[in-house]
């Protein structure tokens, strides 16, 4: 297992920035990632050379924009190993993808049915299902994790014949746990439930294959995988998407519109209303090309080395409390922790003064925080452009935190 060639940091212009006089050490990749030059250039290229409204025009530019948009779908399709590019729906972010699902799947549920989540879900993978459950009198159930952030075997017994949908993140954005989604999908399918995979934190960092998982739906955001903001993905099996009523209504998703009724187009158009973000699609495609050039397996290995090193050094510091699995096979490149006596926000402020971007708070996972009995935590998260030196800077800086806050050490 090797680290990625450190020269790739030259592909990321923002990493030349100084923060408070120090080199930027960007460790908030779970929130959003920095962009390589080829993605930034793709966006400029799009507006400099090809911009038009796709799908509607008979003229050259519009045809070009349409074909760029379609090509991006083809690239996403291959990236996740879907069957057809019509199974790829572009949204504005992972959150919209999940809202679309909760809305358009509502017809699949009957009073008393159960929806099962994990307690570690992001708010975006809780709230839409909560609203749906209230509207349709469903039961919202949770899988609970153990002290190390692992779901114990016994929890899976909650998947029963009443369970109509299981929606779970493949990787927790707080604990870093990689959940066994393939197995969960299999159990859920045995009980006849629909399986939704929130791949927001996994797909940027490892190869994800919808067929292998046998996901019915999968959602993620471009901005967490080197791509631009403002574009997200919903994957769905064709026969399921075919049966779903549209979510947003408007231009480009219709067949016929009358004053008092309307018919809708086929997928994927049915689920994409209004002018689509071709810039975003083109940028996402460039990001996927970059990821594939580096190699997903290399990225996964790189982050494993970083995570192992960081954990090892952090465990040496007695006043640091780390959450999440100690078994690194089950742990992606996200580490949540607390420093004794110091509030996470103060930790983050001190780290920032050394150039380190870290996140403090509930990480949009209040139910998990409450379940763990904490208010907030500090989180660092890695990506392909991080280095062992970044971790050294972090370890050195974290050792200064308590001093700044007036504690002996």
């Amino acid at each position, binding site marked *: 297992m090797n680290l990625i060639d450190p020269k790739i940091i030259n592909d990321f212009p923002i990493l030349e920035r100084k923060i*408070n006089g120090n080199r930027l050490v960007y460790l908030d990749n779970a929130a959003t990632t920095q962009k390589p030059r080829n993605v930034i250039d793709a966006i400029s290229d799009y507006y400099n050379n090809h911009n038009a409204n796709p799908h509607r025009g008979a003229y050259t530019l519009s045809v070009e924009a349409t074909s760029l948009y379609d090509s991006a779908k083809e690239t996403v399709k291959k990236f996740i190993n879907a069957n057809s590019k019509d199974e790829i729906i572009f949204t504005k972010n992972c959150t919209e993808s999940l809202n679309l699902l909760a809305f358009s799947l509502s017809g699949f549920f009957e009073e008393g049915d159960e929806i099962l989540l994990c307690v570690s879900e992001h708010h975006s993978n809780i709230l839409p299902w909560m609203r749906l459950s209230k509207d349709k009198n469903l039961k919202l159930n949770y899988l609970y994790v153990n002290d190390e952030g692992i779901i114990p075997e016994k929890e899976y017994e909650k998947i029963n014949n009443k369970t109509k949908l299981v929606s779970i993140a493949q990787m927790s954005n707080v604990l870093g746990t990689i959940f066994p989604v393939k197995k969960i999908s299999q159990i859920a399918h045995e009980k006849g439930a629909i399986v939704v995979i929130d791949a927001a934190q996994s797909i940027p960092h490892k190869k994800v294959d919808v067929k292998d998982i046998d996901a019915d739906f999968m959602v993620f955001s471009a901005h967490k995988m080197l791509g631009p903001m403002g574009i997200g993905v919903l994957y769905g099996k064709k026969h399921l998407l075919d049966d779903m009523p549209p979510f947003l209504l408007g231009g480009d998703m219709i067949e016929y519109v009358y004053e008092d009724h309307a018919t809708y187009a086929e997928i994927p158009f049915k689920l994409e209303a209004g002018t689509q973000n071709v810039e975003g699609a083109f940028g996402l495609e460039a990001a996927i090309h970059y990821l594939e050039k580096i190699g997903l397996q290399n990225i996964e290995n790189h982050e494993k080395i970083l995570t192992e090193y960081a954990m090892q050094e952090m465990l040496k510091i007695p006043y640091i409390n780390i959450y999440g699995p100690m078994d690194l096979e089950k742990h992606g490149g996200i580490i949540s922790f607390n420093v004794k006596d*110091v*509030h*996470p*926000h*103060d930790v983050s*402020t*001190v780290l*920032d*003064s050394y150039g380190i971007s870290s996140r*403090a*708070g*509930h990480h949009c996972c209040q139910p998990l925080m409450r379940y763990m009995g904490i*208010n*907030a935590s500090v989180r660092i998260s890695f990506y392909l452009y991080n280095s062992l030196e970044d971790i050294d800077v972090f370890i050195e800086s974290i050792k200064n935190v308590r001093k*700044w*806050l*007036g504690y002996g050490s």
Partner: protein
Amino acid sequence: MDLSQIYTQLIMEHNKNTQNKRALDDPTIVEHGHNPSCGDDITLNLIEKNGVIVDASFTGSGCAISQASTSIMIDLIKGKSTEDALELAELFIKMIKKEIEDDNELEKLEDAVAFENISNMPARVKCAVLPWHTLEEALKK
């Protein structure tokens, strides 16, 4: 950003100070204040008699900035009339917004002036003003 302007000795002392962080018997006003995005969460207890704040304390949890700001505020408002306390709140918020022109005005804020530099750290402003907003809510009821 100069950390030593933020994590001053005064602020750090108040952060660790447990004198103002305690329950209060028979408070006449109890107000809850919170910053959901940070997790700062305080409960302000006041005993008001004839328009004067005769005792005050707080409970809850939060970052050093919010804890110290609350403690310093409590020192400041104890014994003051509610009008004076509200005026101080207004002044404090103005200071953070850099809206004070006459530096002499700042004197009234005594130790709370320690938070003047927090306006250079927009992410932490909310923490510093939390107790003062909570006080306003408490007294305006």
